[in-house]
């Protein structure tokens, strides 16, 4: 590892890997930092060394990832796994911890490719042990082949059905799927069907997943309008409301999911401008045609700048990589534009399905803005809806004041698990648009850092 790079890429998912490949092809001194032990990101996690699971379990889309990881490894970029980037300054000073030692380095250009995370799903009891996200269910399967038999899956969105299908493929029994997609979404989504039919592979895949779930005999309960998790030391049952009646399913493992949203922690902490995406109901970094944010030299590629999926992220990574090469001075505008053209075409094609998916799987308000007083919003500091209502009632006007009023968002997760809920909840309580409420001001370190690591921080000059 050097003390200075022309290009630093944070995240080795599809966007980061594609950006690295592009940059290294032109000989730019590049580094890729990634938290995981192996490249692939969340989507292609452990694709190089899958757990003892049959390849068929994950489907061909997953195995596409191994092409990307090979490109990264062959690229000549310094690839640093197990690296926690805890700070990037607007002047592109990067604080990173590898193997327990923290260091500082600098880069001419930075590409933030930190992807997406699952939208919070604040329902009563969602903090009980053994209530997890569908994404973590997939992680268990991908990296450890550890999957609990007889789990209940609840929520909405393509990933929910995909993980259920993968569990079934792996021979893991699923007790039930509680679908919270509101019926009205189907009608609204129909309007976008024509666009979606121009990307039929996604529709076909979706239909196959649902058919597979059906065929396995898993009860797929649609039209669920409310949910609560029950249990003492861990979840023991799920109750759901459907057609006005409450029903109960005993379950010792529940996976919740209602879509993914950009992981904006790093881009916010750098000071990049963000905007509220009403179609996707999330904050996203503002980027230009080349993925560059409002902070010079900092680009955002992939789902961090709006959810478009893994293949789109790959194209965006390429485009951001070319943009960075141009700003470094490695390539000219003509070369940049020429090489970006196929990626742009690919990106456009990938985006065709989005309006349909966004409308169909738009999570319903009562699962985003929790109506029940006791529902915990901030898991780290255990702040519930009542506490936030009280703070707003005495004049708290935004997420940053809420921190001071209630400690909401001040725990180790830095708001990752409550930020969106807080923005939407305050907007709802004050009757203002979410865009006016804003988000937490995020402070480094964006990932917890040990005091001794900081104490022994090595400045770039001291590293070589």
């Amino acid at each position, binding site marked *: 590892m050097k003390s200075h790079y022309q290009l630093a890429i944070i995240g080795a998912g599809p966007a980061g890997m594609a950006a690295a490949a592009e940059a290294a092809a032109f000989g730019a001194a590049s580094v890729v930092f990634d938290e995981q032990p192996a490249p692939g990101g969340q989507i292609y996690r452990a694709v190089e060394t899958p757990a003892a699971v049959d390849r068929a379990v994950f489907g061909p889309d997953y195995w596409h990832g191994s092409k990307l990881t090979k490109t990264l490894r062959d690229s000549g970029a310094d690839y640093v796994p197990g690296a926690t980037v805890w700070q990037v300054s607007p002047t592109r000073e990067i604080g990173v911890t590898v193997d327990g030692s923290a260091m500082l380095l600098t880069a001419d250009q930075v590409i933030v490719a930190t992807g997406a995370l699952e939208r919070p799903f604040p329902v009563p009891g969602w903090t009980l042990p053994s209530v997890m996200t569908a994404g973590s269910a997939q992680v268990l399967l991908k990296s450890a082949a550890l999957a609990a038999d007889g789990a209940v899956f609840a929520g909405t969105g393509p990933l929910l059905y995909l993980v259920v299908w993968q569990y079934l493929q792996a021979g893991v029994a699923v007790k039930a799927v509680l679908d919270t997609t509101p019926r009205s979404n189907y009608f609204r989504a129909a309007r976008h069907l024509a666009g979606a039919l121009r990307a039929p592979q996604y529709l076909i895949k979706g239909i196959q997943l649902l058919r597979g779930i059906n065929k396995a005999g898993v009860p797929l309960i649609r039209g669920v309008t409310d949910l609560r998790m029950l249990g003492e030391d861990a979840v023991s049952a799920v109750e759901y409301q459907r057609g006005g009646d409450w029903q109960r399913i005993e379950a010792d493992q529940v996976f919740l999911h209602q879509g993914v949203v950009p992981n904006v922690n790093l881009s916010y902490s750098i000071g990049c401008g963000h905007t509220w995406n009403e179609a996707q109901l999330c904050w996203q970094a503002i980027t230009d045609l080349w993925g560059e944010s409002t902070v010079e030299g900092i680009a955002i590629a992939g789902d961090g700048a709006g959810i478009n999926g893994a293949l789109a992220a790959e194209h965006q990574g390429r485009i951001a990589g070319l943009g960075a090469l141009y700003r470094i001075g490695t390539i000219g505008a003509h070369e940049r534009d020429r090489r970006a053209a196929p990626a742009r075409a690919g990106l456009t094609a990938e985006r065709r399905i989005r309006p349909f998916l966004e409308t169909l799987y738009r999570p319903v308000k009562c699962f985003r803005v929790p109506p029940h007083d006791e529902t915990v919003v901030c898991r780290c500091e255990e702040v519930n809806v009542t506490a936030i209502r009280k703070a707003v009632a005495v004049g708290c006007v935004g997420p940053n004041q809420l921190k*001071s009023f209630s*400690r909401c968002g001040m725990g180790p997760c830095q708001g990752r698990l409550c930020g969106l809920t807080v923005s939407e909840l305050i907007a709802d309580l004050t009757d203002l648009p979410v865009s006016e409420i804003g988000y937490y001001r995020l402070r480094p370190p964006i990932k917890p850092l*040990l*005091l001794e690591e900081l104490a022994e921080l090595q400045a770039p000059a001291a590293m070589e």
Partner: protein
Amino acid sequence: MVRTADAVVIGGGIHGCSCAVHLARRGISVVVVEKDYVARHASGVNAGGVRRLGRALPEIPLSVAAMGLWHNIGELVDDDCEFVPSAQVRVAENEDEARALEERVRLVRDAGFDHEVVIGPEELRELLPAVSPHCVGGMVVSDDGHANPYRTTMAFKRKAELLGVRILEQVCVLGIDRRQGTWRIETSADPLQTPVLINCAGAWGDHIAAMLGEPVPLRAYAPMLMITARMPFFVKPVVGAQGRTLSLKQFANGTVLIGGGVRGNAVRNTNTASLELGGLAGNARTAAQILPTMRGARIVRCWGGIEGYMPDGIPVIGPSQQEGAFHAFGFSAHGFQLGPIVGSIIADLVTTGVTEYPIGPFRIDRFDSSPQRQSNALT
């Protein structure tokens, strides 16, 4: 429409809100103008130390008087401000530092104050069982404490409003003009008219002073703080160091706050405070060396608040050279504890023209090197 008041306070930090409370209690109508929102900057995000320990000598009489108010803060603002009485200790890491502390305590004693006490190695360990073996002693004030800065400033704000004070947030002062014994203040909203203007603009205090024709060499920095995840209880007093920059305290929820005034950079026109990692690393090193338990602490968040520093490290408090104007700004990262008393001093100056406290050292013209000032100093 022009808004009028008996007094206009510029700045909605702890000093501005405290001035408003004390003036309103004396029957004065007050408007507070705040360019962002109350407690947005240093007043809301400081370390919350309520300390007399180690104060600059001129500040001691004010600090001692403020402490009396802190111990009954609920009576002043109807809120406990999460004030926790506790000892504050400054650790000596070697014999030279221990001697310097003894000297310091003698000096303070000669000035007539006995709140600071020197302790030896045994007493230090009794007070701070977690202290590193190399530490040889310290200086203690047993009944200082700490409070929640945001909550405190908001409590002053709410009390002021209860007493009829109008607080205008997100209103910026653009210009000040004096006409026939009255201040006319142009703002980003309606203009204000008042016979009494009070500059409590903190890190922006020099801008207001300059509008009054009193330029001062204030520099803005962002003193940096970091907070850890919850830890088992291991330290009761607030811990500082004689030879190095440190202020460390553990809250009731187990989190540990580390600060002490290591400076980050502040950009005033964009309200941004950026961290200086080298400084934070040094701060972390100090904490880990004096309290080795801290090595394994997980840092959750670092931040800085924009604060105004005067070259001599003490604030500007007192009347302006212009009639009907007063200053209280530039507290140089130790103004929070003084908040309750400074408002009272300014209110006395406004209503009676005098104060019982020795505020001479804080006068604004102390930086003035013009010939007129020089000759004033001679006479």
